[in-house]
C-alpha cells in the first residue's frame, strides 16, 4: 500500500513517551507483564508480524520507526478487547490511534480517507456524499411513497429539523444513498410508539471515518457539526440509530474535545427494549413458525467501548422477545467479551481484504458454531462484514437489522423492505 520511499519520509513517533502521556499510570505500557493475553485474544495478531503485546514490547524496546510505519495499525479495529482481557487494563488502541494520526493523509488507506473527505465536503457529514438537501429530498420522496403505498401509514410524519422534538435521530448514509426503502421500517416503529422525533438536515449522518484516520481535529470537526445541529434544534435526547461507532464517536468526542452538548445520548436498542417493556412495541415471535435460529453480534463500539452490560442485556432481551427464547443462540464469547467482526475501525473500507477476512475468520467460526440462520446486529459495519464473511467462507446465514424483525413481528414490514430476509421469511405477513 505504501512504497518504501513514502514510508521512510514519515515522521517517527516516540511510543514510549506517548504511552506514558496517554494512558493512566497503573495501566501504561510500563505495567506490561508480557503474558500475551492481549495477543491471544486479538484477531489482528499475526498481520505484518504484529500483535498487541508486540506493539507494547516494541515500544518499550524503542522500535519507534517500525511502529510509526507498520500498516498493522489499519488492521487493528481499535475494539479494545486487548484492554478488556489485560490484568493491567492496558489499552493498546489508544496508541494505535496515535500511530494512525501520524500517517500522511495521502497514505491513509484510500477507503477511509475518501470517506472522511466526503464527510468534510458537506454539512450532512455523509461519507457517501449524500448532501444535506439531497437527504431532505430523499426522505420526503420515500415518505411520500410510503404514504401512497401503505394505507396504514398514509399520514406518517417524517420530520426534519423539527425544533424541540423529544428525540433526534441520526441515519447511516447507506439507506438514503443506496437503499432508501430501508429507511421506512424505523419510521414505522417511531410512528407505532408515537415518538416525537426528528432528523436534522445537518450532521444527520451516522458514520465517522474521520475518527478512523486517527486525526483528532477531523474527528472533532465531524462531531462538532453534529452536536451543533442537535443543540440548535433543542431536542432532549439524541438517539443513535442501528450503528456502532456513530454512538461512540459522539459521546467520546464530546468528552474528549470538551464540547458543549445540551442533550442526552441514547442507543436505539435501549429504546427498543424500553418500548417493548412498556408495551408500546408489542412484538413477539409468533411469526417465527419454522423456529429459525438467530444469533446476535454485539458491536464493540456500542457494547464494550460504550454502554457495556446494560445494552448487551437490552440487545438480548429484544432479540429473545423477537425470535423466541429457544430460537436465540448466543455467540461465545458475547457481550463485553465479544470479538470484533473485523469490519470496525475502518478496516472494512481500508482495502485490506485478505487480512480483514482472516481477522473475521474467528467471527465466522463463532457464527457457524451457533448454527444460526440469521445474525442480528445493530451496526452497519458489522452487518456488511458478516455478510462478506458468510459469502467468502461459505456460511449459510443472513444478517438482519433489528428494525426489519420488529416490523415483521408487528405485521408492518412492507414487501420491498425485505432485502435482508431469506426466502424462509420473505413471505411472512404478506399472505393476507
Amino acid at each position: 500500500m505504501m512504497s518504501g520511499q513514502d514510508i521512510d519520509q514519515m515522521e517517527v513517533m516516540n511510543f514510549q513517551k506517548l504511552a506514558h502521556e496517554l494512558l493512566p499510570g497503573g495501566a501504561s505500557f510500563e505495567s506490561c507483564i508480557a503474558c500475551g493475553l492481549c495477543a491471544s485474544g486479538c484477531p489482528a495478531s499475526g498481520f505484518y508480524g504484529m500483535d498487541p503485546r508486540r506493539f507494547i514490547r516494541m515500544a518499550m524496546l524503542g522500535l519507534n520507526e517500525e511502529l510509526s510505519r507498520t500498516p498493522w495499525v489499519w488492521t487493528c479495529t481499535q475494539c479494545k478487547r486487548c484492554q478488556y482481557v489485560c490484568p493491567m487494563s492496558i489499552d493498546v488502541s489508544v496508541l494505535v490511534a496515535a500511530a494512525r494520526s501520524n500517517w500522511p493523509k495521502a497514505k491513509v488507506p484510500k477507503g477511509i480517507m475518501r470517506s472522511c473527505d466526503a464527510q468534510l465536503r458537506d454539512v450532512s457529514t455523509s461519507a457517501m456524499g449524500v448532501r444535506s438537501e439531497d437527504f431532505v429530498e430523499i426522505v420526503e420522496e420515500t415518505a411520500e411513497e410510503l404514504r401512497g403505498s401503505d394505507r396504514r401509514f398514509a399520514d406518517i410524519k417524517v420530520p426534519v429539523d423539527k425544533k424541540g422534538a423529544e428525540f433526534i435521530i441520526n441515519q447511516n448514509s447507506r439507506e438514503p444513498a443506496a437503499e432508501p426503502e430501508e429507511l421506512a421500517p424505523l419510521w414505522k416503529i417511531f410512528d407505532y410508539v408515537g415518538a416525537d422525533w426528528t432528523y436534522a438536515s445537518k450532521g444527520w449522518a451516522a458514520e465517522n471515518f474521520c475518527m478512523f484516520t486517527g486525526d483528532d481535529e477531523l474527528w472533532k470537526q465531524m462531531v462538532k457539526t453534529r452536536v451543533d445541529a442537535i443543540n440548535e434544534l433543542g431536542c432532549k435526547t439524541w438517539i443513535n440509530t442501528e450503528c456502532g461507532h456513530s454512538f461512540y464517536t459522539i459521546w467520546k468526542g464530546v468528552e474528549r474535545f470538551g464540547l458543549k452538548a445540551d442533550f442526552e445520548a441514547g442507543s436505539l436498542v435501549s429504546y427498543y427494549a424500553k418500548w417493548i417493556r412498556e408495551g408500546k412495541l408489542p412484538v413477539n415471535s409468533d411469526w417465527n413458525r419454522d423456529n429459525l435460529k438467530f444469533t446476535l453480534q454485539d458491536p464493540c463500539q456500542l457494547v464494550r467501548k460504550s454502554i457495556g452490560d446494560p445494552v448487551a442485556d437490552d440487545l438480548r432481551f429484544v432479540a429473545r422477545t423477537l425470535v423466541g427464547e429457544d430460537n436465540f443462540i448466543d455467540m461465545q464469547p458475547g457481550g463485553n467479551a465479544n470479538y470484533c467482526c473485523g469490519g470496525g475501525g475502518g478496516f472494512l473500507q481500508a482495502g485490506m481484504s485478505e487480512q480483514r477476512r482472516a481477522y473475521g475468520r474467528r467471527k465466522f467460526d463463532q457464527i457457524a458454531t451457533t448454527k444460526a440462520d440469521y445474525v442480528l446486529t445493530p451496526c452497519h459495519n458489522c452487518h456488511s462484514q458478516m455478510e462478506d464473511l458468510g459469502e467468502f467462507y461459505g456460511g449459510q446465514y443472513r444478517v438482519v437489522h433489528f428494525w426489519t424483525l420488529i416490523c415483521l413481528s408487528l405485521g408492518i414490514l412492507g414487501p420491498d423492505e425485505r432485502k435482508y430476509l431469506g426466502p424462509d421469511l420473505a413471505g411472512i405477513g404478506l399472505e393476507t
Partner: protein
Amino acid sequence: MSGHQGAKRHYETEVLIIGGGVTGTGIMRDLALRGIHSLLIDRQDLNAGASGGNHGLLHSGGRYVAADAETAAECRAESELLKRLAPECIDPCGGLFVAVEGDDPEFAARFPDHCAVAGIPCEEISPTEARKMEPALSEKVYAAYQVPDATVDPFRLTLQNVNHARRLGFGDFLPHMGVEGFDIEGGELKAARCRDLRSGEEVLISARQIVNAGGAWAMNIARLAGCADVNLIYSKGTLIVSNTRLSQRVVNRLRLPGDGDILVPGGTVSLLGTSSVTIEDPDDARPTIAEVDKILAEGAVMMPPLADTRFIRAFSGVRPLLMASGAAEDGRKASRGFSLITHEDQNLSNFVTIAGGKLTTFRLMAEKTGDLVAQRLGNSAPCATHTVPLPTENAVGWTEPGFAARDWYQRADASDMILCECEMTPQSAVDAIVSDAPGSEHHMSLQAIALRSRVGKGACQGAFCAMRVTSHLYDRGIYDSPEGLELMRDFVTERFKGVRPVLWGRQLPQMELAETLHCGLTGLDLLGAKKPGSGRAS
C-alpha cells in the same frame, strides 16, 4: 588437541589463557592474529566476572580526568580505536556531565581544564539545553558539559574476540573448566590441572605459556602457581537495570565518582550505578537491597523520574583493584590502570598475570600481554589488534539490545517462532547460537544461550522465555534428559539473584506470575522430590 594419559582428558596448546572475560578473550584474539594458538578456559562461561558485571561505559575518560589524567588519556585513545574497529559493539551516544545544586561548584568549574589536559573534547552547555537533550534531568542541574562518552556491549565484544580467534584457527574455548592446580617443574608451569565442572571429570592442560586473566580471581589463580605477588582488593559495584531506556546519552554526575552517579544507556534499557563496597570474597558479589536503595536515591537527585521507574534487575561486578605496593614491587607496571605481572621474581618463566584495568582499555592490556607472551615464545609478529577490525557474524550478534526485534520484525516470518517475547528473540537465533556461537562445541544450556543473546533480559526476566527456550531445546534434541529441567531451574535461580533486590512496584506482579509458572506449572521447586509410590512429582 588429543586425549591421552588414560581416562583423564588431556589438551595441549601453546598458550593457556585462564579467564574468559574481555581481557582473556582479547589476549586470545591478539595471539591468534600473531599466529599463536591458545586455549581459553573459564570456570563458568564468558564474561562471568567483571566483564559481564559492569555498565558497559566506553569511557571518554571524563570520569577520570580529575583523579587520574593518565588513565583518562588511555581511555580516550582506546575508545577511539574501538569505535573504529568494532563499531557494531558500540553505541556512540555521547555523554553529559552535570552538576546538581549541592555539588561542589569548584569541582565543576575545573572540569573543562582537566579534560583539556587529558585531550578529551568537552563542551559546556547551558542547563536548559542539557534538559532539552535529556528531559529527565533535574531542574536543579546548574552546570553541564558534553563529552564523547559511548557505550559498549561487553558480551558481543567478548564473543567476537573468541570467534575471531576460532575463525583464524588459532583458538579454542572450554567453558566450565576450573583450574585446581599446576604441575610445576624446573621453574615452569608444565600443565594446569583442571576439572570439568559440569561432568566432574579431571582434565590436564599442557601449555608452553600460561596467562592468568582471571580478573577478580587472578590472585587465587596466582596462588595456585605458588605466586604471592598478585594482591587484589575486591570492590563490589552494583548497578540496577530499568525496563526501558531513560536517557539518550550517558549521564554522569559532575563530582568525584560515587554511588548512583552514572546512568548509562544499554541499548534498550538504562543502567544506574554504581556502588562501591569492599568485599572479602569475589564469589560473594550479590547485589543487596541496601545498595539498590542507595543508588536509586542518589540517582533520583540527578534524574527525578528514576524514583518512579520500573527496574527489572540488579547485578554486581567485582572490580579487582591492585594493591599499590604489589604493583610497585613488580616494576613492570604498564600504566596506573593495569598491571602486567611476569612472575619472573617468583622463579617462573612461563606464567604471566594481567590484572586491574578497565573494560575500555582491554585491548591495550591484551596487546601488552601478547607482546610478552610472543616474545617468550620467540614469535616476532607484531600486535595487530589496533589495525585489524574485529569481525562479526550472525551467531555473535544476538546480545545487541533491540537487534533481534528489528530483525524479526523485518522478516515477520511467523514460522520462525519467537521464544522470548520481551526481547523478540526467535528460535532461529537460538539455533544459530547453539550451532555456531563460541562454546557451541560443548553442551549448550539455557544459561549459555541467554549469555549469548537477550533471552531472559527483558521485563519478564525469564518467567516465560525460560520455559519456551527449554521446550525448544528439547525439540531440537539439545536436551534429551531430565537435566533440561534442572538447567531451567538453575537459570531462573540465577536470574532471581538479580531480580530480588528490585522487587517492588510494577516488577512484583511479574515476579508473582513467574513463581506461579515456575512452581505451579513447571514444578521446578520440587524437582527430585519423591512422591510416595510413583515417579517424580511437583
